[in-house]
């Protein structure tokens, strides 16, 4: 990275999408090359599958791994039942997939695989296209469930109970706007949180490298504090990785609650 741009270290380079194997696959006018981003999606899927495989022993008395897997499924299942009620059990497969995919992708993005020569960690959840698609899927499920269950009565969601007659048109527009903003806020929140954290880490890493290049004095003055700060921020980012996955899944379940129970 440093070699490519000379003395300048580009903190945005980590987000660059490049086709692997050096070629583009164009199908029906669309470029669906297997990129580094796609590779990390596959890695996320494979690691999650391996993790789940450890929980399939179905022992009466669970081992540590099985207990961990059951802990995650129980966590998602509890979140849905506490937000939606017994009807929430239906959405466990989707919300579990969503939560675990985002969680594993976030954590993979923080793993130090860069120490292996030729490898670069890539955070798929720092891409608007990925978080946007996930948000649109969640929003589409909310719409399908809402209109499927309540028909046009679903629009009653935009008129809260006890609204004065005179205020109904205004409130309806405001509520509709806030409803329509949901997929954007859902997708942008995760994208921004991941991007900001990774830029911050990369900027601090650039400080460490540049300080060391300037000599021992600058190294002590700049690199050492930056490195200490990086350790702290890495821990914070691990927390953010889990929290953002949780927030995405939690908001999805809250929106599903609106669709199932209409407030």
């Amino acid at each position, binding site marked *: 990275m440093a070699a490519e741009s000379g003395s300048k270290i580009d903190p*945005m*380079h980590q*987000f*660059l*999408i490049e*086709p692997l194997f050096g070629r583009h696959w164009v199908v029906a006018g*669309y*470029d*669906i*090359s*297997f*990129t580094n*981003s*796609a590779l990390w*999606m*596959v890695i*996320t*899927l494979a690691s*999650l*599958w391996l993790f*789940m*495989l450890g*929980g*399939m022993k*179905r*022992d*009466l008395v*669970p081992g540590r791994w099985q207990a961990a*897997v*059951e802990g995650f*499924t*129980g966590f998602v*299942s509890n979140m849905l039942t506490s937000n939606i009620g017994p009807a929430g059990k239906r959405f*466990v*497969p*989707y919300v*579990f*997939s969503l939560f*675990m*995919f985002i969680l594993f992708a976030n954590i993979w993005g923080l793993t130090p695989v860069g120490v292996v020569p030729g490898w670069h960690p890539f955070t*798929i959840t*720092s*891409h*608007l*296209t*990925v978080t946007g*698609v*996930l948000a649109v*899927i969640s929003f589409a499920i909310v719409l399908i469930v809402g209109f499927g269950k309540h028909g046009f009565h679903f629009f009653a969601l935009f008129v809260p109970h006890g609204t004065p007659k005179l205020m109904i048109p205004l409130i309806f527009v405001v509520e509709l706007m806030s409803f329509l903003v949901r997929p954007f806020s859902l997708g942008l929140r995760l*994208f921004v949180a991941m*991007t900001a954290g990774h830029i911050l880490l990369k900027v601090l890493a650039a400080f460490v490298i540049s300080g060391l290049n300037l000599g021992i004095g600058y190294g002590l003055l700049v690199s050492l504090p930056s490195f200490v700060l990086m350790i702290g921020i890495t821990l914070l980012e691990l927390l953010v990785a889990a929290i953002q996955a949780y927030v995405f899944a939690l908001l999805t379940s809250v929106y599903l609650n609106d669709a199932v129970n209409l407030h």
Partner: protein
Amino acid sequence: MPQISQIAATYASQIFWLLVTFGILYFGIGKMMVPRVIATVDAREGQIAGDLAAAEQARLAADQVEAAWRARMDEARAAALAETSAAKAQGAKAAESQVKSADAELAERLAHHDLAVGNAKAQAMLNLQAVAADVAQDLVAKVSGLTVGIDAAADAVRRSNAHG
């Protein structure tokens, strides 16, 4: 920012591969593995609840058995108490009648002896009067030289006895 500057060039690949991987994830893991894990947890919880219910049932049964045992013990104790008190009452009655009959026999024997003593006393009294008559006859003969019949002497003794 590559996320935005590259969006036109990469959106198709990103969306395609995300749908592929997330689809496999949803149908392979979410739809197939997760329900089995949840079923395992539910089965375990069901078994725990069942075992607890069975234990509760067993505890109730044990309580019932204990109560029945206690009732039977109480019954047996009461029966034993009644039997002992009856035996005691019977014993007391038997002893009383035995004492009574012994008393009666003793009283009878005492009466016989009293009678015998009275007879002996009367006999002795008669003998004494005969001796006294003899003595009185001799005394009269020695003092006055008169000879009185034994009958007169006896009569005199009787009269003097009667006057004291």
